[in-house]
């Protein structure tokens, strides 16, 4: 698939937070086969701890998708995006404008405004949004070329709370890359998202907080691939009643 003109093979995007050590993170990135990892910006200490992390990120060979996590206003998100563009030398920005501190749900009004400002300034925006169609349209009008609807609240691991809404997004935006961002807890959640026709999945906590992050990274990669192939293979329709799969014709009579 393509994101902003860049070809990517892996449809799994991985976050870099909450791992128990940099080595565990590196193993999970490797085993997941991801080509895009998300990062953030935080206050630097005078000992330069951020520089060491940056070196390790580059060693992964992945493309960097910086986020504006924690920003609650348009101004904060726009300023953070500019700082990220300079620091990571990329026009890509995962745009988060958080509207509620408990649910971490997007402030979709601020999101659309920030997206408009950033797209006009040459950024390639990956908007973390809800599964609302009208918001999706506003984001596309603002200049976004892809959408990242949530599956469930960030870090909750609840899976897809509203698969029907994601299915509607797929139908309404047939040509727009859709990446489910947030809420994935298990490989089956990732596979479900892909079976619905999502183009990719972005997750973090599900791998970072697994007992074996490297193994879970691999499991997620397989689930994403299986779900994608299942979608492409055009699954059968559900039926309410049983239908024999073994032919009835030629059945012996013993009575």
């Amino acid at each position, binding site marked *: 698939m393509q994101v902003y003109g860049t070809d990517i093979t892996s449809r799994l995007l991985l976050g870099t937070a909450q791992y128990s050590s940099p080595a565990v993170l590196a193993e999970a990135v490797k085993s997941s086969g991801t080509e895009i990892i998300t990062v953030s910006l935080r*206050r630097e200490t005078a000992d330069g701890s951020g*520089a060491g992390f940056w070196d390790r990120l580059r060693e992964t060979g992945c493309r960097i998708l910086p986020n504006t996590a924690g920003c609650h206003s348009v101004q904060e998100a726009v300023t953070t995006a500019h700082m990220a563009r300079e620091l990571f030398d990329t026009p890509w920005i995962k745009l988060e404008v958080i509207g509620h501190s408990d649910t971490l749900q997007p402030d979709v009004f601020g999101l659309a405004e920030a997206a408009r400002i950033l797209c006009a300034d040459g950024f390639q925006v990956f908007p973390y949004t809800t599964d609302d169609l009208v918001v999706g349209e506003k984001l596309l009008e603002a200049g976004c070329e892809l959408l990242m609807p949530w599956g469930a609240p960030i870090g909750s691991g609840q899976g897809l709370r509203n698969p029907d809404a994601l299915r509607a997004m797929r139908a309404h935006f047939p040509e727009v890359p859709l990446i489910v961002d947030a809420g994935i807890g298990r490989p089956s959640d990732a596979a479900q998202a892909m079976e619905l026709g999502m183009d990719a999945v972005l997750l973090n906590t599900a791998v970072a907080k697994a007992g074996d992050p490297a193994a879970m990274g691999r499991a997620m990669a397989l689930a994403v691939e299986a779900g994608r192939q299942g979608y492409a293979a055009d699954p059968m329709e559900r039926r309410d009643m049983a239908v024999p799969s073994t032919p009835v014709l030629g059945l012996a009579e013993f009575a």
Partner: protein
Amino acid sequence: MKIIVNAKPHDVSGGTLLAVLQELGFTSPAVATALNGSFVARGKRAEVQLAEGDRLEVLAPMQGG
């Protein structure tokens, strides 16, 4: 001159943003700066003069989701 750096008060001798960063020990190239809520590009640090009470943010790459 008193300024706020990453939410903590600091007493610095003043001058340009570039000079203050060096004075505070932010010598890593992997930092980005914002002054009073607005981004200041790396190339502008030598031109921007700090003033009493300025709020400076110095950010670096960190883990993120």
